[in-house]
């Protein structure tokens, strides 16, 4: 009997609507590490997978955006807990994908878990920061509250396969949006594994949908999709022509567009700020009459 165990290869699959389908097209592509050594086959999604992901995201939007901010925070914190438990796997995948030492990859994974916790804390605080009572010249209460934009397509950064991914996905769902994420084309494995974490973290199916494949092929139908409310073009940072084309397509139904920023390319471990949280929020302002103020004339 041989001492060597037969290797058990992992079949990486998409994460759509809380399930793990293969690509509808049946296609896969080879994913290699930074030195060109084969790691695994990842599904090469088609536009129909993108369409199905939007349907799933739309279906999940009502429940997720309607959940209390406190509850969303708890769910996101749970994601961080689950990530912590899978730390070794992510360290290995990130090290392979980005050609890093174990120690450097571990630092990135830790930063990603911390970031997830950080955004989990923001869910019930962002409302106070960007909303509130406005002073108006009349007998009205005037209140602004931020509301989620809807279904957001996220082009995950191409270079930072895990920390960058977490940095763009967590803020989108923290505020109650649902996301269709296009993973980094050359390093999709950490993203596909993240789907397995999300599936076991109380996150309702469809809130995050993860597709792997060629970014341009998937982004085009999503940018023009009439039922997508916003698009984050971070993953198109290295291809200005594609970013422009997607922005033009997105204009058709007045999608909110987050353009790739120069700072994105730099260091994902920098303090992120609230920019990504507020990028996909819509402000609702209500005017409410204060009613009779009483003889004293005091105002509220």
């Amino acid at each position: 009997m041989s001492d060597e165990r037969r290797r058990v290869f992992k079949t990486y699959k998409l994460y759509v609507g809380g399930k793990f389908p293969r690509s509808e097209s049946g296609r896969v592509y080879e994913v290699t590490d930074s030195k060109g050594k084969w790691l695994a086959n990842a599904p090469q999604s088609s536009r129909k997978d993108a369409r199905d992901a939007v349907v799933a995201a739309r279906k999940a939007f009502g429940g997720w955006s309607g959940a209390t901010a406190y509850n969303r925070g708890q769910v996101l914190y749970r994601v961080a807990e689950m990530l912590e438990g899978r730390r070794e796997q992510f360290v290995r995948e990130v090290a392979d994908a980005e050609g890093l030492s174990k120690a450097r990859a571990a630092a990135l994974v830790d930063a990603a878990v911390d970031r997830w916790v950080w955004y989990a804390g923001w869910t019930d605080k962002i409302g106070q920061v960007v909303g509130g009572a406005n002073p108006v010249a009349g007998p009205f209460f005037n209140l602004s509250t931020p509301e989620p934009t809807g279904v957001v397509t996220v082009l995950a950064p191409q270079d930072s396969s895990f920390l960058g991914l977490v940095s763009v996905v967590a803020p989108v769902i923290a505020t109650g949006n649902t996301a269709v994420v296009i993973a980094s084309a050359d390093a999709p494995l950490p993203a596909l594994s993240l789907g397995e974490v999300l599936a076991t973290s109380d996150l309702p199916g469809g809130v995050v949908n993860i597709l792997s494949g060629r970014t341009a092929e998937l982004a085009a139908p999503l940018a023009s999709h009439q039922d997508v409310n916003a698009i984050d073009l971070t993953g198109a940072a290295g291809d200005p022509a594609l970013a422009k084309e997607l922005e033009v397509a997105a204009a058709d139904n007045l999608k909110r567009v987050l353009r790739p920023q120069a700072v994105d390319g730099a260091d994902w471990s920098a303090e992120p700020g609230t920019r990504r949280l507020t990028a996909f929020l819509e402000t609702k302002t209500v005017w409410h009459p204060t009613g009779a103020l009483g003889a004293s004339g005091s105002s509220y």
Partner: protein
Amino acid sequence: MPTTAPSPEPSAPSGQGGTSFADATASDSALRRFLHGLPGVDTVGLEARAASLGTRSIKTTAKAYAIDLAISMIDLTTLEGADTPGKVRALAAKAVNPDPTDRTTPRTAAVCVYPDMAATAAAALAGSGVKVASVATAFPAGRAALEVKLADVRDAVAAGADEIDMVIDRGAFLSGRYLKVHEEIVAVKAECGSARLKVIFETGELSTYDNIRRASWLGMLAGADFIKTSTGKVGTNATPANTLLMLEAVRDFREQTGVQIGVKPAGGIRTSKDAIKFLVLVNETAGEDWLDNHWFRFGASSLLNDLLMQRQKLSTGRYSGPDYVTVD
């Protein structure tokens, strides 16, 4: 494929397109003998056939044709306790002009409502060519005295219904009193006058494919203009397999009697993909003669929105969304 043409009663005069089944309906026992003499349904074969026909790939121009055909075959239905005249009028407007952004969209075949809403629907649809279909005979359970059922039908016809969707007495059918079901259909048909009669079997309650085949023949013998799968009010509604079975029945019936009868699957058909699968079944089973809204209908409400979204996708190249169709 189970191409099982039921053999006519030995006593019946046989002949292509001229078979009379008068003997079969002469008495309860003769009718039972006839219906139980129909060949048994090969369940596995039927479901495999229905499933294999569902795998056809229909693309581009064929898809555009199928979508338009499916829209023109819809009986746009609202059968809720909460129906109001306003809702029926809104639905009628949608039937006449399903996609206001694209006037080339065909009209639906009919609007299907409860009898008390038939007059409202008829007024809203006057002159449009869209028919008014009304359910009747104590829909959906059919649990009422014959007189009550006939009054229901009279009411609907008087209110301007062009088509009557009746339910059979499943209790009588399942307990083997076929002649009672037969006589009821005949009586309702007599009340319909010029209105076309659709007979609903509620296939989800008939429990076996053999029963669905028997019910189909019973309905056709009694003079139905259409046979319809279900009310949409029970768990199992139209499925490809039970619709395939009914299509085989109308095909065989026309072969033997020369009388063509329509088929209407209803309930549970929600996506364009499903609808196109049914159209493939029609074409491959009954044939092209049935690919017309005079002979084939979909009883549906949410299906129309999905067809419109697919239609918009084909014409613009962009995926459409539920924000671009009405909420009804």
